[in-house]
């Protein structure tokens, strides 16, 4: 199967910051010894290079539908494996240089999938709507008290005064987001406090984060449940981080 390899390799080394980098030992695919490689994790792609200075990756592992597990290895401590669910799938064995690095990589890799990112985005999108809805209704109820939920200091907040108190987002987390499978469309007007409109942007790369972004694409799953066929077990957001 063809792949736009040159562009994929470019994604590895282009100026967008990677999610994680570091040396790992990787068990060879033909030669089964462990080789030290330089790894770059970006999005759902794990690239590996012969050396840190190498300009082109030796290879890439697409991290969609995989699980990451600790594993026993006779020769390596701090070993873990990236496994896929499909028939005759490869198992990618890697080893870190210490316990902390291993834990950090396992965590990063297990959250690297597009599906996971999509779940988090949907969850935050839902929360924001709730918050905005609350802001609207509390504004409607008590006219003289304006902008109850907005912090002091207009559109800016000073880092020093950020307090991470308990959320004012009330209500229990909904189980997954299945109730919104047919839900929100961004064509309904949202009164965003900073006065930004939610007109659809039409086409190409966008950098301005000022407008409320459109809903990311939803994968159609069987039975309308959130259980992704590719990454089992990621159905319910609130349980994802237990």
């Amino acid at each position: 199967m063809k792949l736009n390899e040159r562009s994929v390799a470019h994604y590895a080394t282009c100026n967008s910051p990677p999610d994680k980098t570091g040396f790992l030992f990787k068990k060879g695919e033909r030669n089964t010894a462990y080789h030290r490689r330089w790894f770059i994790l970006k999005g759902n792609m794990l690239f590996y290079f012969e050396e840190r200075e190498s300009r082109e990756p030796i290879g890439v592992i697409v991290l969609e539908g995989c699980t990451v597990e600790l594993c026993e290895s006779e020769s390596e401590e701090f070993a873990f494996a990236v496994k896929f669910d499909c028939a005759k799938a490869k198992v990618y064995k890697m080893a870190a240089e210490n316990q902390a690095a291993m834990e950090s990589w396992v965590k990063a890799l297990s959250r690297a999938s597009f599906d996971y990112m999509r779940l988090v985005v949907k969850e935050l999108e839902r929360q924001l709507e709730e918050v905005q809805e609350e802001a609207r209704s509390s504004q409607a109820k008590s006219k003289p008290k304006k902008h109850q939920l907005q912090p002091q200091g207009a559109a800016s907040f000073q880092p020093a005064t950020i307090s991470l108190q308990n959320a004012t987002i009330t209500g229990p987390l909904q189980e997954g987001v299945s109730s919104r499978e047919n839900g929100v469309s961004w064509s309904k007007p949202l009164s965003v406090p900073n006065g930004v409109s939610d007109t659809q942007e039409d086409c190409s790369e966008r950098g301005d984060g000022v407008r409320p972004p459109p809903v990311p694409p939803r994968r159609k799953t069987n039975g309308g449940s959130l259980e992704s066929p590719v990454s089992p077990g990621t159905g319910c957001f609130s349980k994802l981080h237990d």
Partner: protein
Amino acid sequence: MRFNEKELVFLSRQPPERAAELGMRGPKKGDVVKRRVVKLIVNFLFYFRTDEDEPIGALLLEQCRVEREDDQVFSIVFLDEAERKYLFECDSQEQCVEWIDAIVKASYEFMRKNLIYYRTEIHRLTGTDPLEQYGISDETRFQVFLVLQSASIHHCHLLCFL
């Protein structure tokens, strides 16, 4: 460059975000338009011969630009080789617009920007970082500095998440 082809083929069998038979033309001189079944799944665009189950190829949709070429035609161009265009011919203007929209939103980096936006807004409105309760607020992938190069929001306010 090696890649986990079997796993990608397996991915191509998952329920797509969007799928259609389109006219597709490759980027090389001399490439002609061919009917292909095109499937959008996560940040990949797979393309198949109309009667085959295994994809001929896949395009990773990161670092690319999607443009309207004509009423019913859009193109995908990868930023590292902007002269090479993949062309897609749709059956209607509506289909063309929908595909462009879907592909733009299909990149991991696009989702990351959304997430930063939501996180920042929720924090601004409530004073709380919504990722705290899940213990993932320190994850690199959710950090604001990753989009400072492209965001036009006030940068200094976002640095508080670092």
